[in-house]
């Protein structure tokens, strides 16, 4: 099964809204996962699991952490990470993972 970028965004929005019990209208690309949507660490795991299940992916947590901190210096602050970790960033991450798994429609 392969996905278009629009399908990935809308699936991801549904997943996040359902996991965090928020209205889908709040799950916009610029929303910060922690400070705008109030996600906690168990929610990040939950969302990871749902993405893996939905898209048939295996996300490597170390890879994910490294990509999130990329370019933010040796010791990124919690604020730096929070600002980077938006819905839009997550969708890009999933697209890249799906591309690597050859599951994105060109």
């Amino acid at each position, binding site marked *: 099964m392969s996905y278009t970028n629009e399908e990935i965004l809308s699936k991801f929005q549904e997943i996040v809204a*359902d*996991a*965090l*019990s928020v209205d889908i209208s709040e799950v916009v690309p610029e929303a910060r996962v922690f400070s705008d949507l109030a996600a*906690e*660490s*168990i*929610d990040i*795991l*939950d969302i990871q*699991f749902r993405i*893996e*299940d939905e898209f048939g992916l*295996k996300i490597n*947590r170390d890879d994910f952490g490294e990509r999130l901190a990329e370019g933010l210096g040796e010791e990124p602050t919690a604020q730096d990470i929070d600002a980077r970790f938006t819905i839009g960033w997550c969708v890009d991450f999933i697209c890249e993972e799906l591309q690597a798994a050859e599951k994105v429609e060109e």
Partner: protein
Amino acid sequence: MKSAALGRVALVSGGSRGIGRAISLQLAAEGADTVFVNYLQNDVEAEKTRELVEQHDCQAHLVRANLAYPNQIGQLFDQIEQTVDHLDVFIHCAALTSMKPTLALRPNQWDLTMNASTRSFLLCVKRCVPLMREGAIVALSSLGGGRVIPNYGAMGIAKAALESTVRYLAAELAPKGIRVNAISGGLIDTESIRNFPDSETLIEETVKRTPAGRIGQPEDIADIAMFLISSESRWICGQTLVADGGLSLS
């Protein structure tokens, strides 16, 4: 006591780290033939467990599967069935949760805790039964299943349900020669206890309140698991054995 594990084929869920790793190693050290080590995603720790198990001339098979998802439980058992024709032992350690006040829990946090820790047990046992001629099943519970531990609501509730599941399954499976029991541990020295807010204080307080004067080690629990899979415990059925150095006495 003769070895309870000798020649046996075992599955340990949540076997990559902590108590599950200690149990996998103890099974191997006591002569198990094969240990399937299930885990969630920590490949590096799982690999360490495999190496340690294999040092005892026991076959180790790592099976990554998220037990919160029934389809992955299916894949785990499909893989087991492709490798062996029976199972003797299932030890359920997998669990995950969020440490926070019960009233603050969101539906997804409740569901994930229940599914990963408790529903997973039932679904695994359903797949174990056809593979077991006789067998022993042990689930890891904790004191929070029967009493209140601050910030432990989600897991405490899941453990209460787990202990009840153990009783019902024990009654249904005893006629088939399969014994089901649980171990309820006090605080055990694993990575997971660092998830409690202010874990250092919690450890200090627990040591003070424990008559045995320390917190538990994973090996303390592994020894009890060996007892519960041994024939010496044959008359114990559907029970939750408390192992906490006396913490719950007062």
